[in-house]
């Protein structure tokens, strides 16, 4: 890592596992008797405890949002481009809390954890979670950390859904709500993509109805295909074309030559799928995509998002990317329209980007950076 990069990095970070002994009643009616959450923090909590920011991760994210786990680590956290000293989520000003959600597979209690009641992995019996379950568990984390009110709750995609739910469930507990590339509910097409991905996992012979760990196996092939499907939808046609075009990885079309042709995009997707299947849990993937599908911001508000947002007290920043067709700018515009009708404060930017849904993670997008950084700079915190 170069000197200039190191200056803007949070450096080496240590995740911590926090145990919660009080049972958590879930939206589905079931109860988790106790649970653990993996958490990383960056920056310092100030004396007034008013500079804390909660990062809510998306489908495949975890608590490791910034910095490195060791000096030799090659890959920093998933949002390292935007969290650190001098970055939009400036750790010189803010105390940043990043969490692996309940149901995750990176240390927080989830389907691959051991169910204390049976001594076996939860597997298929792990409860279906909804976004509000995460929000309630995050509120308990805030209590544990002594944070009464977040300066901001921030999330992209599924993380944006958590941020919005926060603004309705705990309106007094956040001053700013930052919703990036998200939606108040998924469209039928969007659910269809998720279902196809789930079917890829569930039709893998190694899936065993979700109890693959009991059979000492993994539905790796199914999970890899699920990831490929997802990955295609997170990129834009244009962006993919620009990066891969019709370039060949191997073989040729020379007449008279009987060679198997493989396109670059094929091997790229295979690589993405395989490496994901090695590091992620299939049941968690199913759980997260279901939580996405189930989310409907205004369901409990008579399907009226205006009535829902009238309960919110936070100021909102909503951002979308023009090439994002999975969480299209129209979905963000719907959020903004409801917020305006509900008389809430809101800034909305539609950012031009070739990177599709993944744009919210990708560096070197000056307009995204400028809006994000300038907005964050307006958030007031005590010295």
């Amino acid at each position: 890592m170069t000197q200039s990069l190191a200056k803007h990095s949070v450096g080496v970070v240590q995740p911590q596992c926090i145990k919660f002994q009080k049972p958590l009643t879930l939206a589905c009616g079931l109860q988790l008797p106790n649970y653990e959450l993996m958490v990383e923090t960056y920056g310092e909590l100030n004396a007034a405890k008013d500079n804390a920011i909660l990062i809510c991760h998306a489908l495949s994210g975890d608590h490791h949002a910034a910095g490195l786990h060791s000096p030799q680590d090659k890959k920093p956290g998933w949002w390292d481009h935007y969290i650190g000293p001098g970055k939009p989520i400036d750790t010189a000003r803010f105390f940043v809390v990043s969490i692996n959600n309940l149901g995750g597979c990176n240390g927080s209690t989830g389907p691959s954890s051991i169910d204390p009641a049976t001594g076996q992995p939860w597997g298929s019996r792990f409860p279906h979670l909804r976004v509000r379950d995460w929000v309630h568990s995050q509120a308990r984390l805030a209590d544990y950390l002594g944070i009464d009110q977040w300066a901001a709750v921030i999330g992209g995609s599924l993380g944006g859904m958590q941020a919005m739910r926060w603004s309705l469930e705990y309106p007094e507990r956040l001053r700013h709500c930052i919703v990036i590339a998200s939606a108040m509910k998924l469209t039928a097409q969007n659910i269809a993509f998720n279902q196809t991905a789930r079917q890829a996992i569930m039709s893998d012979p190694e899936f065993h109805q979700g109890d693959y760990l009991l059979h000492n196996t993994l539905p790796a092939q199914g999970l890899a295909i699920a990831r490929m499907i997802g990955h295609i939808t997170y990129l834009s046609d244009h962006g993919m074309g620009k990066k891969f075009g019709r370039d060949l990885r191997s073989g040729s079309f020379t007449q008279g030559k009987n060679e198997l042709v493989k396109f670059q995009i094929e091997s790229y997707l295979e690589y993405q799928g395989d490496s994901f299947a090695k590091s992620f849990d299939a049941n968690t993937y199913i759980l997260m995509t279901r939580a996405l599908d189930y989310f409907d911001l205004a369901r409990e508000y008579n399907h009226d998002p205006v009535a829902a947002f009238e309960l919110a007290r936070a100021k909102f920043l909503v951002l979308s990317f023009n090439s994002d067709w999975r969480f299209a700018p129209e979905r963000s515009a719907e959020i903004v329209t409801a917020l305006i009708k509900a008389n809430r404060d809101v800034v909305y930017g539609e950012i031009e980007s070739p990177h599709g849904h993944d744009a919210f993670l990708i560096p070197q997008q000056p307009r995204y950076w400028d809006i994000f950084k300038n907005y964050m700079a307006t958030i007031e915190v005590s010295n």
Partner: protein
Amino acid sequence: MRIDHEITQSWVKPKSRVLDLGCGDGSLLKSLMQSKQIQGYGVEINSDNILSCIRNQVNVIEQDVDAGLDNFSDKSFDTVIMSQAIQALLHPEKVLEEMLRVGQQCIVTFPNFGHWKARWHLAYVGRMPVSDLLPYEWYNTPNIHFCTFRDFEILCKNMNIDILNRQVTSDNRFSSILNKFRPNLFGETALYRLTKN
């Protein structure tokens, strides 16, 4: 404070909802928030202006006004403002109609193309007017739909729009005396307060 902003402020009720189309750097909304405690929203497409609004802590929505105001419901704002922007629109009459649908009242301000300097420029120099106020050549100007005060009032009449107030401003005291008699010749900027039922 800019004189046109001052007049606009006097037409806005305290604690009302205000939508500012083409809100620029948000300075008008900011002063309205401070002096009248309004709940304001700006609409902009220029990215530098959007950043300025964010720095000014003004609500700003990135949206092309020419594409319509479908996302705003009927009479959902007390005042809809369009300050020095109507001449840059592709569809001024459609946007005007939309403004009057969304707002109880509308405030529209624009530069007068019938001002004597513009007339003189066209009549004697034989070229499209270029001035301090309108410093563009015909081929690069963002101002594509010029009108005079008289033109605008004819449009209002045709669209059954009620003109509640008109204020005309000019650059110096001499002109401001003259524009009392011949506003369409001596007024530089007009502010109209409009409504439609």
